[in-house]
Every structure is written in C-alpha cells, then in structure tokens.
C-alpha cells in the first residue's frame, strides 16, 4: 500500500476541487436551507456530477461504472466536504448503490445501477431503527415470512438523503434476536410500495434526512437483496466504505474551516496587530495543523486498505486489519473535525457565532458527521476489538 496519489488520482482530485468550488456549494446550502427545500440539494448539480462520471466511480465496468475504488471515492467526498456540498453522493452511490452492486441480482442491478450512475434515480439505505444507538447488528425492524414473501414492519430514522428517494435498501430481521449477527436480511423496496411512509427530518446541518416507516409492507422474493439472513456482513462492509467516504468529507471540511481560520488570523486586527501574531493562538493552530496532517494519512490508508481487501469480504485477517484502519480513520477524523471547527468558531470570535457567517455551517455539519456511523468512542472500541484487545 503506497500512501501517495498516482497521477490519475491527482488529476481527479484537481477536477473535483475545481468543479466543487465552481458550484458555490456553501451559498447553495444556505439558500436551500432558507427556502426550506425538502430535497435539500440541487438536482442540476447532481446531474452534472453524474455527467463527470463521479457517480460511476466505485461500480464495476460491466455495470456501467468506472471500476475504481475507495482511493478515488475519498477524493470526491473530500471536495464535497470542502464546500459542504449537499448532494447525495455518500448515500446513493457509496452506501445503497454499493450494496446493490455487491449483492444485487442481475435484475436488481439492471433496474437500479444504471439509473444510479446516470443520476436519474436515487437509492437510500434505511438502516437505523428508531430508539437505537448506531450498531449494524442491532435490528428492530422485522420481515415476517408470509407465503412466498414477507411482511415488513419497522420504523427507520436518520435515513441519510432518505427524503424523496426512489427506493430503499432496508435492513430487517428475518430470524434471531435483537442483537444476533445472524438473521439480518436486506431488501430493495421501491418508495412507492404500499405501506411506505416517508417524513422529512430537519437536522442541524440542513441536509436531507428522513424517517421512513414500513407498515406491513408486502415483499416478494424478488425484493430480497443478497442471501436471506446473511445481510449483516455485506451491510457492515458497505457501512465501512461509507464511513471512509464520510472521513473524506470530514477531511475536506476541516481543511476548509482551518484555512479560513488561518486567513482570518492573518487579517483580523486587535490591539494593533493581526491576532495571528498571538503565540497562544499560533500554537493551537499548529496543533490543529498536525492533527489534519494525521487525518490525511489515515483517510488515505483506510481507503486503500478497503481497496486491498476487495469486494467479496476478503480473508478474515486482512478484513480485521482493514476494519482497524477504518475505525482509526473515523475516530481520528471525528475528534479532529470537532477540534478544528470548535477552534474555528472560537478564533473567529463573535462573528463566528452569527448565522450570516459561514463558519457555523461547518461546525453544524461537523457534528452530524461525528455522530454518523458511530462516534469516536464507538470506533476506538471497535479498533480494539479488531486488534484483539
């Protein structure tokens, strides 16, 4: 595993950065928020991203994708994170799209991957049951056998980009107890199926999120995604990929917030000098710089570790090593993104507290990232378990 961008990756990163900046995402996010836009992102920008090929990056070439890996995905999400771009890349492409790509039947892949890649349809993952803390093995929703199919019941919350999605990958228990690793199944359920009810959730980051309730929804064998009762491992692997993609976003977010703060330190005058000349602030800035450098390394390493394991789970030892890298990245980025955005606000002083100023938007999104897919404490524990202690 080499921790350096190859020339093609460097070019992709540059393209992504240029495009993302051109879309003025922070201004867009603010406008979408103030308009209480229920979709929470800009469809035309989403289409443009698809046109650039970003939506096809992680998919196999025979599914119409570019056959690249997480090493490339994090370059995209880092660019999105820099500008707080609210487009549903993480949810539709990496998370739900990734699951359909890994597990889908020919019919499912044909029906959903091409529209995902061209941006015409949008998948979302309905995983988190209301009233639980994040843990993929915890599943309250159930799909009870009924004739040749199942009846699905469950109340999902915090569904990322869950409002106005075209279909949901739904996690439901088909056997076993609440925390069992066996007996969890995945289903691919169109949003217009009878009994599916979607409510927009308004969160602090103003992004698209939803509660998705399934009231005795009829499922057929064709709706099953992957093997019955064996959904947990592919689900965890998809969440690991999404976690690393989210780390990329956090990295971009913290870099941008930090650079804006450094700029502010250089220009804001107090006591007749730039406040960046105060040594106490300098040292704190330097400490953040080091943290960000570490984050760059761990995100790159986690992405490449997953790419090395490959798509089919890989051998257990390699998989454990990759899990350790993923959890290391998520814990570190979660802590760093909070540190950097808190410090950004503090160093901006009063103006940082105003809604008019952008830095608060970075802090709000940082908190959502921190608590998505498990916080730093969750991942420290998971790292320890992966390392056998």
């Amino acid at each position, binding site marked *: 595993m080499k921790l350096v961008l190859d020339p093609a990756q460097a070019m992709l990163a540059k393209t992504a950065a240029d495009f993302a900046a051109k879309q003025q995402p922070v201004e867009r996010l603010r406008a979408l928020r103030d308009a209480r836009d229920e979709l929470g992102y800009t469809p035309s920008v989403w289409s443009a991203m698809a046109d650039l090929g970003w939506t096809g990056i992680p998919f196999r070439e025979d599914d119409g994708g570019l056959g690249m890996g997480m090493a490339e995905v994090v370059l995209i999400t880092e660019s999105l994170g820099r500008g707080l771009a609210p487009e549903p890349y993480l949810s539709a492409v990496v998370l739900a799209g990734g699951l359909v790509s890994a597990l889908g039947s020919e019919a499912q892949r044909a029906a959903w991957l091409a529209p995902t890649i061209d941006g015409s349809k949008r998948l979302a993952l309905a995983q*988190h049951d209301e009233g639980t803390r994040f843990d993929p093995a915890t599943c309250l929703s159930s799909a009870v056998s009924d004739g040749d199919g199942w009846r699905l019941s469950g109340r999902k*919350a*915090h569904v990322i980009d869950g409002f106005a999605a075209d279909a949901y990958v739904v996690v439901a228990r088909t056997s076993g107890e609440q925390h069992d690793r066996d007996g969890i199944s995945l289903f691919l359920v169109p949003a217009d199926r009878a009994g599916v009810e979607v409510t927009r959730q308004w969160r*602090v980051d103003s992004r698209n999120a939803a509660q998705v309730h399934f009231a005795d929804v009829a499922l057929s064998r064709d709706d099953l995604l992957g093997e019955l009762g064996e959904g947990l491992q592919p689900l965890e692997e998809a969440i690991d990929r999404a976690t690393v993609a989210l780390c990329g976003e956090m990295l971009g977010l913290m870099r941008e917030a930090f650079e804006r703060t450094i700029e502010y330190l250089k220009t804001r005058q*107090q006591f*007749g000098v730039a406040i960046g000349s105060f040594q106490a602030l300098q040292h704190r800035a330097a400490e953040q710089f080091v943290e960000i450098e570490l984050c760059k390394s761990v995100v790159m390493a986690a992405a490449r570790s997953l790419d090395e394991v490959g798509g089919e789970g890989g051998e257990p030892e390699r998989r454990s090593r990759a899990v350790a890298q993923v959890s290391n990245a998520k814990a570190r980025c979660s802590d760093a993104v909070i540190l950097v955005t808190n410090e950004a*606000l*503090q160093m901006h002083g*009063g103006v940082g507290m105003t809604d008019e100023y952008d830095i608060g938007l970075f*802090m709000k999104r940082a908190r959502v990232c921190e608590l998505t897919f498990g916080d730093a404490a969750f991942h420290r524990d998971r790292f320890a378990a992966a390392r056998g202690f």
Partner: protein
Amino acid sequence: MSELETFREEVRQWLEANAPQALRGRRNDPAAVPWGGRNPRYAYPESADWLERMAGRGWTAPTWPKEYGGGGLSREHERVLHQELARLELPPGLTGFGLSMIGPTLLQYGTEEQKREHLPKITGGKIRWCQGYSEPDSGSDLASLQTAAVRDGDEFVINGQKIWTSGADLADWIFMLVRTDSSGKKQAGITFILVDMDDPGVEVRPIRLISGASPFCETFFRDVRAPVGNVIGEPGDGWTVAKALLGHERSMIGGMAAPRVSLPELAAEYLGRDEQGRIADPVLRHRVAQSEMDALSFQLTVQRNADSLAAGHQPGPESSMFKYYGTELNMRREQLMLSIRDQQALGWEGDGYSEEELLQTRAWLRSRANSIEGGTSEIQLNIISKRVLGLPG
C-alpha cells in the same frame, strides 16, 4: 429563636401569603422570570403581580439600600430569602442587566442624584437596561472603541455603532462606552454614559445566531443626545468604571454553569443501566463523572470565594477565573450531552425529536458563545497570567 430564624419565619409567612400559586414550582423555567421595562412581557400573567409585591418589599434587590428600592438585607439574610424562595421553587421577582450590572456599578460609582434617579426604576422593574461595549472592530481589544461622543453644551452627541448589545431590541436604556478624547492612550478618553434609547437616532437590528435565536443586536447611534449628567464617574475615566462592571458580567456568565438537567439521569435514560444500576457504558459513565466532578469543584470554589469574602478577606481576581472555568465547563457539558443523546442530539425542528432534544441542539449552539462573550477565554487567561501571576509583557 435567633434573629435570622425570626427573619426566616417572617419570609416564609409572607411568601405563603403573597407568592402566586401559578409560579410555584417554576423556579427553573426561564420564561417565569420577568425582565421588566416600559413594555414588559409576561409569559405568566401572575408575574406582574409577583414583581410588584417583591419590589414592594425591596426583595428584587435584597442587599441594596432601602432608600434606592432595595431590601437593605445582609448577605446572611439574603441567603435565607433565597432558601425560602427555593423551598417553594419560586422564580425571583425580576432579573436583568439593571440588577446584575448597571445597578452595582451605580452603587459603586454613581452620584447620589444618579442613584436616586435610576436605582428605584431598576428595582421596580420599570426600566430595562442593555450594555453597549463591543464594536465591530473592537472585540477583545475593547479599549480601541471608536463610537464618538462630542460635547455640545450640556449634552453629549453620540455617533457610532455597538455590537453584541444583548437584548437591545427590548431595552429602554443603554449604559455604554464612548470615546470623548482620542489624543492620548486608548484607555484614556473613554467615557461611561447612560443613554435613553427612545432617542430617534438609536436604531437596533437583531443579529441571528447559529442557534437560530437573536439574543444580540447591532445598535446604531446617529446624533443621539444624552445630558452630561448621565456620565458615570468622570468624563475620560470610563475605563475604570467599565472594568469594574466587566467583573459583574463575568461572574454572571461563569455562573451559568448551573445544570439544566441531571447528566447522570440523562445518561442512564439514553444508555440504560447495568445489573448494578450503573450507567451501562463505562466510558461515558467516566466522562459523566468527570463533568460532575468538575462542576462540583467549580461550585465549591465559588463557595470558598464567597465564604472568604464574608470572612472579610480581600477579593481577588476571581471573576476572570470564574468566567473562564465556568464557561469552559458549560461548553464541555453541552458537548457531553451530545455524546449521550447521539444522533437524537442533531435535530433542528419537526418530527423525530422530543422537545427536550430540540432544546438541546439550540443550547449546545448557544453555549459556543460562552467562551467569547463578556471577554473571551483568551482574554481571561491573559488577565490571570498578567494581573494574578505577574508574568511580564
């Protein structure tokens, strides 16, 4: 029966007779505490009566002299009064910057005439005050302020802009710092003056914060006039008055650490309990313990300071320490609550969150200002290192 116990008995009987039933049990409900003013707002109609009765006894400002509308009580008697109010879980009769900030400053620096003019209107809740210190280009460097007051006969004519004027949109008067001389050192030439905001040259624009609330304003002054008699202390000597007042402000903000909810109970609710009845997650339990211990230690230090003052010892530089530690503590506590509530702490409005959870989000965002307002944490640390530790530079 000791004189203090006699007093307790008297207070108890008076409260039983006078405290509105509707307000009992509402001690921790911020809406139940009136701020007074020319156009008072009462969430509970009983508050108007409660204010009037409390003010009638001088108990809106228990330790102020009676001749200015205060209660004339000693610290010990005041404590008894607070204990009895707490017993019925009653809110105070009045709150606001008049009582906490400009009032004490007038008692210390005001002329007899100024005290007679302003203090009774404060204790009676007739006038609501706000503070005009910060300006857009003078945040931590407060003394660099530029709002100008030019003498014109018996009046000063004021032009400039203040920012972070807390509650200015609801206030009647403002106590503010203006520059009356820019020839010397920047701390010289600052004057402390009281201004009636009814003046047509005063314009107030609320500032929307990241929490969505607008507790602060920008306040603009265009040829606003205030009589020379409204200056506190001497013209050009406002910095001395201002620093004394900042001490009152810091103590107030640092004191905000008083917990809204019990952290251990919150953690047990969200994380469950193990077989021994303990918070189930040992790592979060540890963080909760740390936070509770920090709060206890802080509260003991506040008490030690009060006991030391009561014993006749000289006051020290406590206000910077309390401001710094109290606000940092509060901010860490708010963040810990996010960790406890996990994704349920991320709601902004609407479905999927309890009312308490939505309040949590706003309280956390609001708390981020704690280490900035009233002198940043960095300024407090500067003050400690220079004035207390005597470090150079």
